[in-house]
C-alpha cells in the first residue's frame, strides 16, 4: 500500500487523517492518502502562498515551457516519486485503471492528452493569448507592433478542485504554471494519481516545488481552495457548481450538455455522419463533458437512434488490458445505480424509447470481472422537452429529438460544445451569435479538440488583466 502525503507548497505533510483509495474491482486498499483539514489549507493560502509565485517569477516563460516539455517526457516514460514509493509510467496506468475503472487504453489516451498539452505548450499559450509575445510576463511591459503592453496577474495562485472520473482534465491547470501562477490542487477522492504524478514530473524537470499545493481534503478544504486562491476552477455536478454561480473568480466546469445539431441540408444524408455521431457519444467511454449527450435533428430521429444503437451495441465490458476496450467501469457502483435508475425513471414518462436496450439485448447495468458498468443508452424522445432529451451521464448516453431547424437555437439551451453539421451559410451564420455554446465545431464531432481554441474559459484571460501603460520616451 502506498502512503501519499499532502504537499504544502512542496513540503510533504502526513496528516493524522487518511483516506483509503481502493481497487474498484477487488476492494484492495491501494493507497492511504493524507487528508488535511480546511484550516491547514486556509493557513497556507494566507501565509505561505506568495512563496510559490516568487519562485516561479525567477523563471522566464520560455524556461518554464522548456520545463513543461521535459516534464511531458517524464510523464510518459519516467519514474517519479509517488508517496513513499516510486512510480513508472506503466505503474501509473495500472493503478489509475484500478481506482478509476478506466481500461488501460483509456488511461493511456488521457495520458496522451495531458502529454500533448505539456509537450506543445507554446501552441496552447498561443491559443490562450492570441499570439501575445509572452516575454511581457518576464519584463512587465513590452512594445508589440508599436503598442505598449502590460499585464497584471490577478491571483497569487490558481486553486483547482479536480474530479475523480477524468484524468485528462489535469491538462487544464498546467498552463497556469507556465504563466507563473502557482497551483493548489484538491485531487478527486478516487484519483489522487494524475495530479501527483504531474507535480512530481514538473519538479523533476526543474519547476520549483513551492509552486505546488496538493491538498487531499474535505468539503471545507475544497471550498477554501476555491475561495482563498485568487482564482479557482471547480469540477463537479450541477449542485456543486451552482454554489459558486455568482463568484466570477471561480470557473465552473459542470455538466457539458454538449450537442450535435444537423441542418436541413444534411439531414437526409445522415448515414454519412454516423461515424461522427457514434464517436461523439462514445469516445472516452462517454465520460467527458465534450461527449455528445444530445442530438437534435429536423427529422429521421428514430432512424438515427436505431442506427447509433446498433453501432453502440458493440460496446460491452471487457478486460482492463483489452486494447480495444471502449467502456469504463464505475469506481463508485452507487453512481452506476443512480444513472441506471434515473434513466429508467425517465423512460416511465411517455414519449421516450431506449433503442439501445433492444440492440444490446441485455441489462443496462452489468457486473463484469468484479466491476460495475453502465452500457450505452440511446433515447429517442418525441420532444426536446422530454426529461431525457437533454441529460448528461458519465457513460455513453444520448437523447435524440426532432426540432425544426428554425427553432433549434431557441430550444437547445447551453452546450459546452455545439457541433453543427450543415453547409448552409445562413444557418451557420446564426451560430456565431449564439451565446450558449462554449465551442462551435463545424462539421466535426463534439469530441474534436484543437488546443489553440480554448473553450470553457480562457485561462490567460482568467489569470491576467491588461493594464494601461504609458512610458516617458
Amino acid at each position: 500500500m502506498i502512503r501519499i502525503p499532502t504537499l504544502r507548497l512542496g513540503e510533504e505533510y502526513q496528516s493524522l487523517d487518511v483516506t483509503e483509495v481502493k481497487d474498484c474491482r477487488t476492494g484492495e486498499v491501494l493507497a492511504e492518502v493524507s487528508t488535511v483539514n480546511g484550516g491547514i489549507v486556509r493557513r497556507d493560502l494566507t501565509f505561505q502562498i506568495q512563496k510559490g509565485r516568487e519562485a516561479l517569477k525567477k523563471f522566464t516563460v520560455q524556461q518554464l515551457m522548456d520545463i513543461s516539455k521535459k516534464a511531458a517526457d517524464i510523464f510518459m516514460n519516467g519514474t517519479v516519486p509517488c508517496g513513499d514509493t516510486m512510480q513508472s509510467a506503466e505503474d501509473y496506468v495500472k493503478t489509475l485503471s484500478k481506482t478509476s475503472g478506466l481500461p488501460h487504453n483509456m488511461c493511456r489516451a488521457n495520458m496522451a492528452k495531458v502529454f500533448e498539452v505539456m509537450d506543445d505548450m507554446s501552441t496552447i499559450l498561443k491559443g490562450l493569448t492570441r499570439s501575445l509575445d509572452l516575454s511581457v510576463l518576464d519584463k512587465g511591459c513590452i512594445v508589440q507592433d508599436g503598442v505598449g503592453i502590460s499585464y497584471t496577474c490577478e491571483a497569487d495562485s490558481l486553486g483547482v478542485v479536480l474530479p475523480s472520473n477524468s484524468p485528462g482534465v489535469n491538462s487544464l491547470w498546467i498552463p497556469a504554471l507556465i504563466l507563473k501562477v502557482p497551483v493548489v490542487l484538491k485531487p478527486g477522492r478516487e484519483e489522487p494519481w494524475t495530479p501527483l504524478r504531474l507535480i512530481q514530473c514538473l519538479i523533476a524537470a526543474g519547476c520549483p516545488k513551492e509552486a505546488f499545493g496538493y491538498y487531499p481534503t474535505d468539503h471545507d478544504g475544497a471550498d477554501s481552495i476555491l475561495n482563498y486562491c485568487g482564482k479557482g476552477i471547480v469540477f463537479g455536478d450541477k449542485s456543486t457548481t451552482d454554489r459558486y454561480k455568482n463568484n466570477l473568480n471561480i470557473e465552473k466546469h459542470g455538466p457539458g450538455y454538449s450537442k450535435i445539431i444537423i441542418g436541413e441540408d444534411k439531414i437526409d444524408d445522415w448515414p454519412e455522419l454516423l461515424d461522427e455521431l457514434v464517436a461523439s457519444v462514445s469516445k472516452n467511454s462517454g465520460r467527458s463533458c465534450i461527449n455528445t449527450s444530445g442530438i437534435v435533428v429536423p427529422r429521421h430521429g428514430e432512424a438515427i437512434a436505431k442506427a447509433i444503437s446498433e453501432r453502440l451495441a458493440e460496446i460491452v465490458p471487457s478486460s482492463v488490458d483489452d486494447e480495444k476496450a471502449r467502456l469504463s467501469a464505475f469506481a463508485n457502483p452507487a453512481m452506476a445505480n443512480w444513472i441506471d435508475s434515473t434513466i429508467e425513471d425517465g423512460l416511465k414518462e411517455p414519449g421516450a424509447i431506449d433503442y439501445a436496450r433492444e440492440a444490446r439485448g441485455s441489462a443496462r447495468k452489468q457486473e463484469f470481472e468484479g466491476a460495475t458498468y453502465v452500457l450505452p443508452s440511446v433515447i429517442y424522445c418525441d420532444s426536446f422537452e422530454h426529461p431525457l432529451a437533454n441529460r448528461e451521464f458519465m457513460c455513453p448516453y444520448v437523447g435524440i429529438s426532432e426540432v425544426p431547424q428554425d427553432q433549434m437555437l431557441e430550444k437547445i439551451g447551453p452546450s459546452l460544445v455545439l457541433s453543427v453539421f450543415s453547409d448552409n451559410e445562413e444557418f451557420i451564420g446564426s451560430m456565431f451569435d449564439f451565446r450558449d455554446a462554449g465551442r462551435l465545431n463545424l462539421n466535426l464531432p463534439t469530441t474534436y479538440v484543437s488546443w489553440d481554441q480554448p473553450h470553457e474559459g480562457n485561462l490567460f484571460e482568467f489569470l491576467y488583466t491588461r493594464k494601461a501603460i504609458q512610458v516617458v520616451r
Partner: protein
Amino acid sequence: MATTLDVAGSAEAREKLDIHLRETIKWHFSEETGCNFWLNWKKEAGWDPVAEVKTFDDINKFPHFQDEWLRDVTNDEWVPKKFKGKPFKIFETGGTTGIPKQRIAWEDHLHDYSEFSDTLEDEYFPKGGNWLMVGPTGPRRLRLAIEHLANVRGGSCYFVDMDPRFVKKLISEGHYDMANKYKQHVVDQALAILKNRPISSLFTTPKILEAMGERCDIARYGIKGCFCGGTSMTPQLLRFLQEEVLGPNGKLVPTYGNTLMGLACSEDNLVESGYNVIYHAPQPRAVLRIVNPDKTEDLVEYGEWGRVELTTLTKEIFVPRFLERDEALRCEPTERWPWDGVGGVRPFGASKTKIVEGVY
C-alpha cells in the same frame, strides 16, 4: 454485558458513585426534597427508585431521559422542594427554532469549573491573568462557567458573543458568505480586545480559534493557553490547532461538555497521546457510558465504538441515561480518573453518514 476494568482506586470510585447515586435518588424522589417532575414520574412509573436503585447497575431501571422534557416541561417543575424560593439560573441549549431546551441551575457549573481549574497548568493559564471567551454566551451555562473559571484563578473575563443559532440558520439557508462574514465579525471583536487588553488565556471554539489564527499570531498577543470546546475535534484538528495555530509555546486544552453534564476532563498528554484525547466525566456528579446503540442497556467492550450515554446526578438535576448525539470509543479507567473514559468523540452516525457540524 461488557465487563468493567479494575484499576487502582476503581473500587473506591465505584463505591463513592453508588453512595452518591443513592443520595441523589433519595433527594429527587422524596416528597420533602424532590421536584414535581420526578415525583409525578414516580407515581406513573409504579415503582420506587429509592427502594430499588442501590448501585449504578440499577440505573438501567430508568428509561432514557427525553430531551424534549427540557423544552416541554416548565422550569418550576424541575425545582427541588428544598430549593423552592431560591432564584435559579436558566441555561439553554439548541433552540434554532421555537422554544429552546432549558435546564435550571444554582451552583453546579461552579463546582465543575472549580474542579477543572485544578487541572490547568499555571504556566499556560497564569493565576491572576485575564481571560477572553469568544463563543456562545447569552443564555448559556458556558458564559458563567468561563467567567467563574477566570475568577477562581484570580482574573477577570472579557466576552465576545457568537450566536450559533444564527449561524445554523445562515448555513441551512445556504448563506455561506454571510456565515463567513459573521465569523469575521466575531473575530474582529476578539482581536480588538486582544490588542487592547491584557489577556493571557482564551476560551473559544475550534472554528473561531482557527479563524483568529488566520488573522494574527495568537501567541504574540500574550495568549499562552487556550481552552477549546463546543464541537467534536478530530486528532488532526487538535494537532493543527496546537502545532500551527497556538505554536510550540502555547497550550491547547480540549474539552468535552454540555449543559447537562458539565465538563469532562482529559489527561495532560495531548502530544504524547498522538492527539487522541480521552475524556473522563466529573464522576460522581456525572457518569458517561458508551452503550450499544441497538441495545442501550449494554456497554460496548473497551476499544469499541458506541453511543455516549450521560447520567447527571446532582441535587440540582437528575438526568438518567440521556443519549447524547455523539458516539465514542469506550476507554479504560486511569489512576487519576478510575472510571471509564470516552475517546474519539464524534457526532453519532459519523462513520455512516457525513454530518455537517461546523456551526461553531
